[in-house]
């Protein structure tokens, strides 16, 4: 049984990967909290709608005639780095990292990670429950 073929598990696995990447970006921000001219970054938010669409594949018109054109399937874009919006404050040296804000984000990230791993475990437990012999 390939769990990645089940949309929910695939989504959770991707979310874990995204959270891991975000953790790395936030770590870079905090490590550079005293670097002149450094602007904090964040990753693009993971869009549930995009993920769901990626699961189902983009909607395609049915081809009933060989002369019909088939559109190139647009894959959902992966998470890319971008500058965070509205830095709270910029120091004289041009550094825009606020330790509190970054730590809050990192904490949120860790909590989300825990939530996702717990969800993963719960769903697996549900599967096991269904597989257990009934005696």
């Amino acid at each position: 049984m390939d769990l990645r073929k089940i949309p929910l598990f695939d989504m959770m696995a991707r979310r874990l990967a995204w959270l891991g990447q975000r953790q790395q970006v936030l770590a870079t921000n905090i490590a550079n909290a005293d670097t002149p001219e450094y602007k904090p970054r964040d990753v693009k938010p993971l869009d549930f709608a995009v993920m769901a669409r990626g699961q189902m594949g983009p909607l395609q018109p049915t081809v009933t005639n060989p002369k019909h054109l088939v559109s190139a399937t647009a894959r959902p874009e992966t998470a890319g780095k971008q500058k965070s919006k509205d830095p709270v404050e910029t120091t004289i040296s041009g550094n825009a990292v606020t330790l509190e804000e970054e730590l809050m984000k990192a904490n949120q990230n860790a909590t989300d990670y825990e939530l996702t791993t717990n969800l993963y475990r719960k769903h697996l437990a549900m599967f096991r429950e269904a597989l257990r012999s009934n005696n």
Partner: protein
Amino acid sequence: MDLTKAMEVSASGMYAQGKRVRVIAENIANADSTAEKPGGDPYRRQVITFKALLDRATGVEKVGVRDIKRDQVTQFGERYEPAHPAADANGYVKTANVNAIVEMADMREAQRSYEANLNLIGMSKNMIQKAIDLLR
């Protein structure tokens, strides 16, 4: 894996802040270092600057020390002590341009940044642990 890379980045931050504390310690230790002869300069305080550097092996942006320079802006102090070997004709000795309060404030900042990086390592480690716990 992204989480181990995150830990590496945080470790580079801790290393850089450690260097900063070392420079501050040198400044404070030399706060009373004067010249040997009249006309010479006493200890000049050092300033450390950081820069973001791309680690090509792992593709992550770490932090490193740009350089450690002497502070040419802050003026030396003067103290009246005619018996001192470095005293000039009027009996004044040039003292180092180290201000204990500035150094202390700088050190606290380095300490906070160090702690933030350390916390983040703990956080990343916890996340890895959570992922491993999925096996259980």
